């Protein structure tokens, strides 16, 4: 028996029952489509996140006030503070810190003439462009003098330039940031989206100036962003910062930190672990879909064997051996599940592409890694073999005389 002949027979049989074949493989189609779509979306997300964090570099770190440490029974609520004074202490006392900036932020409305636009305002110092690895495109960032004199100056993102119609030459234009009049001194490089936040839709003002806008209390709740000297010392730097802040905040040896220090690779790792659990949940759902799909295939193959009892008798009478019949029906089941797998891959890819198209920003074009496709096909084939073996065995065991007599 020539092997390829089995595929021809299988396709012929499946083609004769097109509708039934497609309906049968629906479980497989849905399962595989779900895998491919999710893998494609997660890969896209991971790509975007990794690229962005790679952008700020492996030496990037964040210090945040930890609200959670306030909570708990029997703990007297103590105002969590993280101030720029802490930041300055870190800069002076922790070796290995290269750059550090405080960040306070809040939503504000910016105005220019009759135009207004809701955006996010950040109060930072002159290290911001180097800390966040985001350079100024036109004009300049804050100088020491801007900061020291609490000058009312602003650096805006490209999106803000567009929304306020600041024109081709925004530097020198007078705008309002909330209630605060400010002169635009620079425009940041265009960057696009980053995890739902449009990096181009930001307004920066000097840290001390921003306290006039957000109020003095904001100075107790700053975030610190910093760059370590190199990637090998980040964990040392983190420990030194923790020791210094515990001392400054007078935290007892048994009490928890009222701040947290995040390393860039930890941030990436935690995002990736979330994406990993999303993938795992989907994989479980897909497992169920493939199981249901497999049972569907077994069912339809049993029907097919019964319907074609006479055909089996004819084939046996002209010299088909048991294994010829077994292989024929097994290949038919596998072909069925592989066709389902192929349809699933293309539908899943389509969904991934659609999502990539809908999501704004520099989302990469739908990308499905080869391993996911191989896995999808491998699983489909496995399901076909596993659930096809029983019906095929039943066909192979048919007695030719009985089969020929079957009406």
């Amino acid at each position, binding site marked *: *028996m*020539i092997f390829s*002949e089995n595929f021809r027979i299988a396709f*012929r049989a499946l083609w*004769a029952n097109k509708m039934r074949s497609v309906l049968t493989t629906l479980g497989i189609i849905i399962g595989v489509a779900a895998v491919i779509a999710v893998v494609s979306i997660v890969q896209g997300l991971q790509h975007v996140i990794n690229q962005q964090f790679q952008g700020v570099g492996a030496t990037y770190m964040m210090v945040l006030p930890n609200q959670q440490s306030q909570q708990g029974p029997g703990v007297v609520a103590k105002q969590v503070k993280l101030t720029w004074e802490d930041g300055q202490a870190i800069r002076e006392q922790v070796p290995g810190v290269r750059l550090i900036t405080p960040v306070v932020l809040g939503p504000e409305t910016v105005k220019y003439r009759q135009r207004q636009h809701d955006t996010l305002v950040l109060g930072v110092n002159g290290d911001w462009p180097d800390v966040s690895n985001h350079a100024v495109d036109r004009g300049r960032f804050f100088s020491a003098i801007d900061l020291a004199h609490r000058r009312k100056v602003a650096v805006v993102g490209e999106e803000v330039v567009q929304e306020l119609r600041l024109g081709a030459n925004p530097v020198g234009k007078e705008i309002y940031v909330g209630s605060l009049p400010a002169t635009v001194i620079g425009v940041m490089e265009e960057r696009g989206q980053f995890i739902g936040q449009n990096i181009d839709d930001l307004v920066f003002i000097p840290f001390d100036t921003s306290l006039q806008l957000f109020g003095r209390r904001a100075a107790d709740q700053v975030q610190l962003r910093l760059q370590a000297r190199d990637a090998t010392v980040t964990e040392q730097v983190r420990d030194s910062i923790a020791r210094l802040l515990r001392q400054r905040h007078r935290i007892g040896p048994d009490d928890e930190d009222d701040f947290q220090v995040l390393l860039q690779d930890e941030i990436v790792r935690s995002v990736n672990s979330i994406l990993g659990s999303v993938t795992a949940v989907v994989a479980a759902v897909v497992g169920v879909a493939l199981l249901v799909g497999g049972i569907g295939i077994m069912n339809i193959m049993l029907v097919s064997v019964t319907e074609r009892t*006479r*055909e089996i*008798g*004819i*084939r*046996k*009478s*002209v*010299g*088909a*051996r*048991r*294994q*010829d019949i077994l292989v024929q029906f097994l290949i038919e089941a596998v072909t069925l599940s592989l066709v389902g797998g192929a349809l699933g891959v293309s539908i899943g890819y389509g969904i991934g592409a659609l999502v990539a198209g809908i999501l704004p920003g520099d989302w990469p074009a739908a990308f499905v890694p080869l391993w996911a496709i191989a896995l999808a096909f491998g699983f489909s084939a496995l399901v076909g073999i596993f659930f096809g073996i029983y019906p095929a065995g039943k066909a192979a065991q048919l007695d*030719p*005389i009985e089969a*020929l007599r079957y009406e």
Partner: protein
Amino acid sequence: MPLIEIRDVHKVYDMGAERVRALDGLDLEIEEGDYVAIMGASGSGKSTLMNVIGCLDRPSSGSYVLNGTSVAELGDSELAAIRNREIGFVFQTFNLLPRTSALHNVELPLIYAGVARRERRQRASEALARVGLADRSHHQPNELSGGQRQRVAIARALVNDPSILLADEPTGNLDSVTSQEIIELFDALHDGGNTVILVTHESDIARHSRRQVMLRDGRVVEDVAPAAREEPR
């Protein structure tokens, strides 16, 4: 040495409480090139004998030597190979694959013989030409008349050059005119050197053969060999 040598063959079916002796110590020899009609009433064992000769079934006891091979103790795969090489079946109900062209139906035994596609096509076309259906090779069974379907079945039986053409009531589902055509085709195949075994209960059909074997209760009760074929009426 005869082509078929059957010695003291028994075939017993267990039907619950009853044991049915379909073949009961049957002896039969058939020479190569012979033209035999196996006759008998319903229940005489002629279908069982045909299944045994055609290697679709194994005797319960006794010996069956086909073309020098002792068939009685072969396994399933070897029996399948014998059916493929040595036997060409023609059935009363044609038994063609539906929704499948005449050519592909005729090709079927060659697929299981492992013949390559190109040669298969060639030989199947030749077989169809031998039964006068060269121009119908791409028709499906439901597009053919009963007589044409049986011709396709005969072409399928011939295509692998078997030792025996084994026909079970080949005209049972055909009208008298078509029956005549089909039986003449068998005559021609016999004249061309094929060994033909017909199972039939119609004496009109049996009259075409060289030898008539009558079965009753699983035994041969009459075995006549008219010297010459009678002219059909």
